[in-house]
């Protein structure tokens, strides 16, 4: 992997730089282990994250290695998990909690919106919330109802929350370390579909929250995506290249704060853009990005900004999800609709 943005940098003070090929799941596991090692105040808990190692094995081995008091199971109650994490964060700890699937984060929604997001503001910074809420998100894994939702809009809309989602094992590692190091609460969305995708991970690379990433250079259109939609966008770019179109791909990776500068620079350079995300489109992060790009790049646009998103329906059952999810063809259709005939 090449680091293409100056927000990604090798931390020269880091004790050791190791580069290895890892799945995203393994990269996340490593990030947790390294954070637990680096900082006594970090602790990991949730449902089945202890001896089982999490239903996706992201916490595999942590209890065995760090002990029950650093990584442990809780009673089965998500509001309880987040609510106690709030209290711990108030008292000097850095809890990293796992909520098992998107839809099972919902019982914690009041705690997240009314407290996690607002405690720092409420106390004029007197109480910070260094807390990470990890949520496996998105579909494409053939999961049954409630297991494949994409609920980033709920969090991104909530002031006070930082919301990030990695698309590569490197970002999974670096963003999770950054999230755990952040003095503010971070909702960390892990694209389930990419858990098993592999890539090189350099543990010395740090990523700034708030920074997007150019995942592929291109001159004709900018695809803007995050999470599992990034590899999809890259595939679409590949396919379009075969048809002679040069497609740029921006990996947003930090939904809030949003890297307006990089995204707008990218779109201004191509004059055309398509936003891609799995979640239902209405009042979504995709609509936000679309609206921002429209408003900020208006004079540069050759065509309306399009979006390719999930439908405004509940997530499809496993056998219909291929119809539900954005795919390469749908992205290319959107690209085709960008007024090419008008071009000088």
């Amino acid at each position, binding site marked *: 992997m090449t680091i293409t943005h100056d927000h990604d940098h090798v931390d020269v003070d880091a004790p050791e730089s190791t580069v290895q090929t890892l799945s995203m799941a393994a990269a996340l596991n490593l990030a947790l282990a390294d954070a637990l090692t680096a900082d006594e105040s970090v602790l990991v808990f949730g449902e089945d994250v202890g001896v089982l190692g999490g239903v996706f094995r992201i916490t595999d081995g942590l209890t065995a290695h760090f002990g029950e008091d650093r990584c442990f199971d809780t009673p*089965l*109650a998500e509001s309880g998990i987040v609510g106690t994490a709030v209290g711990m964060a108030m008292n000097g700890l850095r809890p990293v909690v796992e909520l098992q699937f998107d839809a099972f984060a919902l*019982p914690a929604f009041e705690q997240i919106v009314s407290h996690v997001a607002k405690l720092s503001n409420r106390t004029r910074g007197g109480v910070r919330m260094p807390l990470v809420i990890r949520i496996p998100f998105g579909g494409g894994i053939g999961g049954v109802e409630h297991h494949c939702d994409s609920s980033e809009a709920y969090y991104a809309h909530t002031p006070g929350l930082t919301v990030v989602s990695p698309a590569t094992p490197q970002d999974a590692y670096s963003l999770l370390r950054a999230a755990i190091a952040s003095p503010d609460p971070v909702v960390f969305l892990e694209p389930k579909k990419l858990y098993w995708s592999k890539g090189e991970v350099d543990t010395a690379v740090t990523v700034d929250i708030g920074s997007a990433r150019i995942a592929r250079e291109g001159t004709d259109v900018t695809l803007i995506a995050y999470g599992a939609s990034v590899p999809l966008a890259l595939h679409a770019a590949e396919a379009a290249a075969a048809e002679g179109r040069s497609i740029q791909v921006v990996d947003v990776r930090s939904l809030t704060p949003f890297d307006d500068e990089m995204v707008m620079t990218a779109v201004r350079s191509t004059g055309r853009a398509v936003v891609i995300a799995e979640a239902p489109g*209405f009042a979504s992060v995709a609509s936000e990005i679309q609206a921002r790009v429209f408003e900020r790049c208006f004079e540069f646009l050759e065509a309306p900004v399009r979006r390719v998103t999930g439908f405004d*329906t509940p997530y499809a059952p496993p056998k219909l999800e291929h119809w539900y999810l954005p795919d390469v063809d749908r992205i290319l259709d959107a690209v085709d609709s960008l007024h090419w005939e008008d071009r000088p």
Partner: protein
Amino acid sequence: MHPFLIGFGREGERMMHEELLPRDEAVQLIDAAGDLATDSDYALPDSATLLAAYRGLVEGRRINDQASALVRQGRLAVYPSSHGQEACQIGAALVLRDTDWLFPTYRDSVAVIARGVAPADAMVLLKGDWHSGYDVPLHRVAPQATPLATQLLHAVGFAYAAKRRGEDTVVLALCGDGATSEGDFHEAMNFAAVFHVPVVFFVQNNEFAISVPLSRQTAAPSLAHKAIGYGIPGRRVDGNDVAAVLAVLGEAVARARNDEGPTLVEAHTYRMQAHTNADDDTRYRQREEVQAWVARDPLTRLRAHLSQSGALTDDLERGIAEGAEEIASAMRAALNADSDLDPEDLFRFVTTERSPQLQEQWDLLRDEIERDQETHSAGGAR
């Protein structure tokens, strides 16, 4: 009189308060060896009932194991088996009248089927065709709930509506030991108690919530001890003894039907297999622990009892086994058939009238599908 006894702890009620607590020992009517364990509070169901229950257990076991096999063969996406918990499943189904309602979870397919839902319809969710596959009002079985404890509140509201219309419907709501930790469990118990609705909460305490053992779930003397905190009776039953399950649930259902309000029943049972096929239970429990529960199997003890009593003849046993095999083979046939799925279904049931937004989105998808088909029939790529 002491001011804080107003409304509370009145002399006549004190006894009642103690009755809200479960007994120290779970109710058991047939022990693990198949011998009768007499109980001063609960009578053994008659032998016709026990025979029907036995048939249910055998069929339930067969359904569980058939479904697990279908998962291995890739015909089902996932199956949370109730292998080992069949006494709870069958007890819950048999204790209800036709006009009663069941609110089950993902683990309760056997109970759902025992209520009359065709196995293939019960498996629609697990096959991945749709989120639920049976006719809810027809069978009086709510969709199997995935988000834990949420269905308990639905059961309470449902019972409220029935009571309001003066129907004698009883609602039986199922959940697991883990689910008792959720806020919705608490709210459901409390609403049921305050509104005094005809609902029975039946907790299958199978010792695990995926990998988390009961000792990590609660520090209470038992889950049934939660009941008094809502002012309703809590009961504990041996969940591998279908006779005891029928007796204790039967009493709770009768109370509900009699407008005596809700009951919380905790059944002590054990999840003999992994949480689902996707789970690896060797990571979190000893084989010996699992093995120890084989001796407490709900089928063998009832078979032993019914054989001893002469109620279960070889002929009957053979007939029951054949019946179970028929169910299994019908399941195989139904689930081996390819599903005929219509992508427009994604848009059909979201709201009663399709919104212009959804129509637009379907138009887009339809167009894609048509172009796809053209490309395919033209043999070309994009």
